[in-house]
Structures are given as structure tokens and as C-alpha cells.
């Protein structure tokens, strides 16, 4: 070519920059995998915050309702961590995606992505690209590139734990009667007032029992049958033929079995709430379950009295107590259905009988308590005498 003073030849070339180390695609992948592990760890931590927080909330709610032992809590925690690990495993980016993220984080101008593509190819520039990427990645610690920042998930977890702690603080230690009461009484969130009362009422009574205080707990024990009476045997309280209009949950029930209602009149809430006629065992179950609900309204002898008033069908006297009792009755109706099913299946009769006996014993103790005014004591005593089972007569 004319006018070309220095042609392209070897003497013109600058000294080649020799590679001072072995270029290895495997080393590159290994370096990226380290960062990938870091990303997975961050994902696991992030997901753990979320899942453990959710688990804590659920566990606390369950603890609040029915009680849960340490084993259950540990199982919930394990499940949450397992879920987080699974999510972190599934959502962890691929090696190539990790390379792209490294390019972004370290502003490497797509060096790593290009090197990952080039390492498998046979281009003459492939070793140079891989070497370039290795030079940039060597000595970089994954923790520096991907620091553990868990701002939002950690805040969520902390808030959840606070909520869970609050729930646990007001929850009852687990016990068989409370668990069964909660199963029966507080299922429906719509009847939150009733459910909470049914849970909170027994708490006081039962804890008093465990503390050996007979006066106050006795009232709670009384409240159970008396509330049951409020639903089932209103006529026995002396107002035969009336309907318990203040207890809407109870009113939804059908007419009580006449064999269980000596007055032979209409009573609300004793039935299961689904319109079926109550059987003997059903009524008994309803009585105890409704008593559990009524316990929420009964705190001490006064509450027992209020419940007893409800039992007598004089619902106009204690509006609040009746309303709460109504909520409890709704929940009890659910429980009654379950127990009816169990009873029909042949199982659970003994437990129902045992609960009725326990309620009876408690009622008798309450009646004998000095805290109850004599007039009301006589009233409740008459009521229990009226509703006692044939074998108790």
C-alpha cells in the first residue's frame, strides 16, 4: 500500500502482556458460587424473619385459644425455618444470574457475565475475558458485596414477636378443660366477645382453683350450670312458656326437648343451634358448654348470679350478661354439634357425663358458698335440682 511507512509486523507489536497465572473457568465458577451461597444465606435470613414472624403469630393465636406446649412451639419454629430454607433454596439465583448481580453491584461492566459465557467457548479472547473477571473477583469477600441488610423483614419479625408476646401474656396456660372450652366456645371470630369471655372467664376461675381459692372459683363453677340453665331450662326458673328473647344465639335454636325442660315450654339456646332437636346428651353437653361461655361473664359470685338470672329467663335484668351469654351460646352450639357427632359415634359420652358431673359438683359448692346471697342461692339450688339427671335424683 503506498504511503504506509510502517507496516503491521511483529517488530511493531508491543510486548505481549503474558498471563502470570493460570486462567481457570472452574475457579471463576467457584468464586461466583461463594457469592451465591452468600445470597442464599441472605435470602434464608430474610425469609426466616418473615416465616418465623408468621409462625409466632399463629402459635400465639393458637396458644391464646387452645394452649400449646413447648413442643408445639418448637415444631412451629422448625416448620417456619424449614419453609424459609426451602424458599431460599428455590429462589436463589443461578450462577449466571449471580454473575450478573456481581456485575451490577461491583460495576464490572458485564465482565463476569461475559466470562461465564466465554469460559465454555473457544474464542481466542476467552482466556483474556476470564482472566479479567478473575482479577476483579479475587480477594472480594461476599459479605462486602452482599451485606446482610434485613431492615424490613427484621422489623416485621420484631413487630410480630411483640404481638405474639402480648397474645401469650394474656393467654391461659394450657389445660384440658380450657382447651375443650376453647374448642367449643370461641371458634367463631364473629362472636369474638363471647369467645373471649368464654376464654377469659374460665381463666380466672381455673387459676383460682389451682391456687386453692374456693370462694371466687366457686362462683365460676356455679356459673357454668347456671348459664346452661339460662339456655336450656329457662322455664324451670319459674317463667314457663316464655322465650329467651335476649339471647339471639339461643333463640336460633329450636325448641328444647321437653324431657329436658320440666316446664315443657320453649327455651332458647339449649339446642345445637342448627334447628335440630336436642337429645338428652346434647342438652347436657350444651349445658356445660354454655356454662363455659357464661363463665366469661361470671366473675365471682355476682357473675354467677347474673348468669343465674339469665338461667331463669329473666333476661331483661342483665342485658350485658345475656348478650355475652348469647355469644357464648353460639359458640357452644358449634361445640354441641361436634359433641353430638361424637356422641352419635359412640365416643365422648363419658366425657360429657364427666363434665356434667363436674359442673354439678361445682354448682353445689357454689351454692353452699357464703358469697352468694341466700335468695339467689336458693334460686340456683332449686334450678339445679330441677335439671338434675335421673340417676342423680
Amino acid at each position, binding site marked *: 500500500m503506498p504511503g504506509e511507512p510502517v507496516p503491521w509486523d511483529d517488530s511493531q507489536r508491543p510486548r*505481549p502482556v503474558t498471563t502470570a497465572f493460570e486462567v481457570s473457568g472452574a475457579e471463576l465458577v467457584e468464586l461466583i458460587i461463594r457469592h451465591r451461597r452468600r445470597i442464599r444465606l441472605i435470602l434464608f435470613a430474610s425469609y426466616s424473619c418473615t416465616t418465623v414472624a408468621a409462625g409466632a403469630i399463629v402459635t400465639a393465636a393458637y396458644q391464646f385459644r387452645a394452649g400449646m406446649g413447648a413442643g408445639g412451639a418448637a415444631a412451629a419454629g422448625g416448620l417456619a425455618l424449614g419453609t424459609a430454607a426451602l424458599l431460599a433454596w428455590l429462589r436463589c439465583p443461578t450462577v449466571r444470574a449471580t454473575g450478573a448481580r456481581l456485575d451490577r453491584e461491583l460495576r464490572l*461492566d458485564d465482565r463476569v457475565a461475559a466470562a461465564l459465557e466465554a469460559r465454555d467457548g473457544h474464542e*481466542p479472547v476467552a482466556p483474556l475475558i476470564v482472566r479479567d473477571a478473575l482479577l476483579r473477583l479475587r480477594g472480594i469477600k461476599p459479605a462486602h458485596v452482599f451485606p446482610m441488610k434485613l431492615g424490613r423483614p427484621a422489623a416485621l419479625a420484631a413487630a410480630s414477636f411483640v404481638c405474639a408476646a402480648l397474645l401469650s401474656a394474656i393467654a391461659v396456660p394450657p389445660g384440658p378443660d380450657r382447651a375443650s372450652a376453647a374448642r367449643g366456645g370461641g371458634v367463631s371470630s364473629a362472636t369474638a366477645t363471647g369467645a373471649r369471655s368464654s376464654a377469659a372467664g374460665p381463666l380466672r376461675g381455673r387459676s383460682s382453683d389451682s391456687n386453692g381459692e374456693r370462694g371466687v372459683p366457686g362462683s365460676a363453677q356455679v356459673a357454668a350450670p347456671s348459664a346452661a340453665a339460662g339456655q336450656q331450662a329457662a322455664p324451670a326458673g319459674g317463667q314457663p312458656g316464655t322465650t329467651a328473647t335476649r339471647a339471639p344465639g339461643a333463640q336460633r335454636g329450636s325448641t328444647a326437648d321437653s324431657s329436658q325442660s320440666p316446664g315443657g315450654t320453649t327455651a332458647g339456646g339449649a339446642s345445637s343451634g342448627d334447628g335440630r332437636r336436642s337429645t338428652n346428651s346434647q342438652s347436657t353437653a350444651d349445658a356445660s358448654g354454655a356454662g363455659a361461655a357464661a363463665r366469661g361473664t361470671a366473675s365471682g359470685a355476682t357473675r354467677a348470679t347474673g348468669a343465674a338470672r339469665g338461667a331463669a329467663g329473666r333476661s331483661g335484668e342483665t342485658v350485658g350478661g345475656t348478650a355475652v351469654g348469647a355469644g357464648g351460646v353460639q359458640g357452644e352450639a358449634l361445640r354441641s354439634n361436634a359433641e353430638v357427632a361424637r356422641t352419635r359415634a359412640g365416643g365422648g359420652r363419658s366425657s360429657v357425663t364427666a363434665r356434667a358431673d363436674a359442673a354439678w359438683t361445682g354448682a353445689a359448692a357454689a351454692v353452699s358458698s357464703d358469697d352468694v346471697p341466700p335468695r339467689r342461692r336458693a334460686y340456683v339450688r332449686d334450678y339445679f335440682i330441677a335439671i338434675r339427671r335421673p340417676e342423680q335424683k
Partner: protein
Amino acid sequence: MTPSPAEIEAQAATFRECFGHLKAEIGRAFVGQQTLVDHLLLCFFCQGHALIEGPPGLGKTLLVRTLADALSLDFSRIQCTPDLMPADVTGTNVLGEGPGGVRQFSFQRGPIFANIVLADELNRATPRTQSAFLEAMQERHVTVFGVTHPLAEPFSVFATQNPIEMEGTYPLPEAQLDRFFFKLLVHTPSVDELAEILTRTTGVESVRPVSRYGAATVRAMADLIKQVKVAEPAMRLVLRLIQATHPDSTDAPPVVKKYVRYGASPRAAQAMTLAAKGLALLAGRYHVASDDVRQVALPALNHRIILGFQAEMEQVSRESVVRGVLEAVSEHEPC
């Protein structure tokens, strides 16, 4: 023969050195406009053709001539006028006397047979003459009377056009515009640059570029540029940019949907990729980064987008549309 990595490294170092040398030499004669010079050199090393647009008197011809001088390459200038014929460009067969007095036709080469061809005011040539450039630019050979004549290597056409005087011009058809690797805009110099121009051009001293590299170097550099790797992120960015220039595409930004009639062709993608490869080598990399693609998108796209009536009515420029596309297309694909 496949070069070894060490050879590639050496060639890359030479490329950077050559590029810097050319830039310095051109800078001695041509004042300012660094981006224009960079793009022109990049276009030349990628063996593309450039359309240089600017008002008269800004040094377009000087720029191209200085490039040819700095590389000691064959340079020819074609002043395009309406009476310019295709044979004036490509050459023709002339009857001559051969050995022994035998009369025979021999091919007389036209000015297109040079390493660097400056087609001054190309839009003043008739469409017939303009089309004479088409085969040369794309196929790198010309066919005269059924005989194909290959052009010299390296070969680049640098055409200029004046955006002001449109009287008596023949606007370049889209097919020809698409054959230009870059469209480069020459801007009016600043006051300081004007002062420097006056100092250099009105004195006694005349600047003569020093030539250190030649055609072989340019050919080797063009081959080296093709060796550069384009990784998937950069390639996808190129494709998304091209796709975004089409108004019927779902990825098109509102500015494209409103103002663009036809989007960029696949040649635009080729031009962007090749130019990005050159930029990567200049940056000391052997792979294309997304940033390289963004840097060359404007000169590669702004003559390949055909604006609609709405854009003409609102006086929207192609540059603003391309910038809108660049802003709309994110660097990394959405996950």
C-alpha cells in the same frame, strides 16, 4: 489462523495506541469536536461508512482528509452535483490501444477506488448517481459492463450533506441511509474553538499530519474488533433498543409510538454491536459492556429512524427520539 491470547493482547495495545495517535494527529488539524472524531475513527476501524452532516465551513472535508493523511491511505474526493454520472463515480471502459497496436477496451477506475472516499454533498447528486454508491458501500465492489471490480481494503465512504440548503437536493433514500454505519453531526464550534481555528489557519504554518500506521494496521484492527465477545446482557440490550424503535412493538416507549413511522433495521444492530466492540477494545476489555452499546446508540440509530408527520409538525428531532428510547430501555432486563 487463530491468534493466541498474547497476540490479541498485543494487537489490542496497538489498536489503542493507533487510535490515540490518529486522534492526536487529527486534533492538530481539526479543532474540537472530540466526540465527532472518536465516532469517525471508530466507524473507520469498524470499516463502516459515515454520513457527516453539518453547516458549511465547519471542517467536514478537512476532517476526512486529515484522517486519510494520518494513515497514508488513498484518498479521493467526489464533489456531488446534479450532473454527476454513475460512471464518474465507478469508472468506465474506455477504448485504448493495447500492445501491438490492438485496440481494446480497458477499465478506467473511478474515484470510488480509494481507501477513503469523500462524497461531498452527496444529497446534491441525482438518485441514479447516489445508487452507484450503494453496491460499492455494501458489497465493496463495483460492476461495470458485467465485470466486477473489487475495491481496495480498507474502504470507507464518508459522505457529507448540508442540512440548511435543501434547494435542488435529492434527499437520500432510506435504503442508502441504512448503509451508513454512523450519522455524525458537526456542531458549530465555541468561541474558544473558533479562536483556535483562526490561529491555526491564518498563520504561516500549515499542519501536516504524521503518518505512523497504514492500511495493514487498519485491516488488522478491523479483524481484531470482530474478535471481541458480546455477552448476552449487551446483546439483549442492543436487541431491546432496536425493538423499542419500532412503533408497533409492545416495548416501544410513548415517544416512539407517537413520532416514529418506521424503526431501525437489523443493520442498526450490527452497527451498534461492532462499534461497541471497538469501544470495548479501547477501554481495555475483550467483551462488550452495556455502557458501550449506549455510547454508540445515538450515531447508529439517528439516521435509521423514520419519523412520521406528527414529528415533522412538532419539529421533533431524531436525536430526541433516540434519547427517549435510550431512557426508556433499562440497562438490565426486568426480572
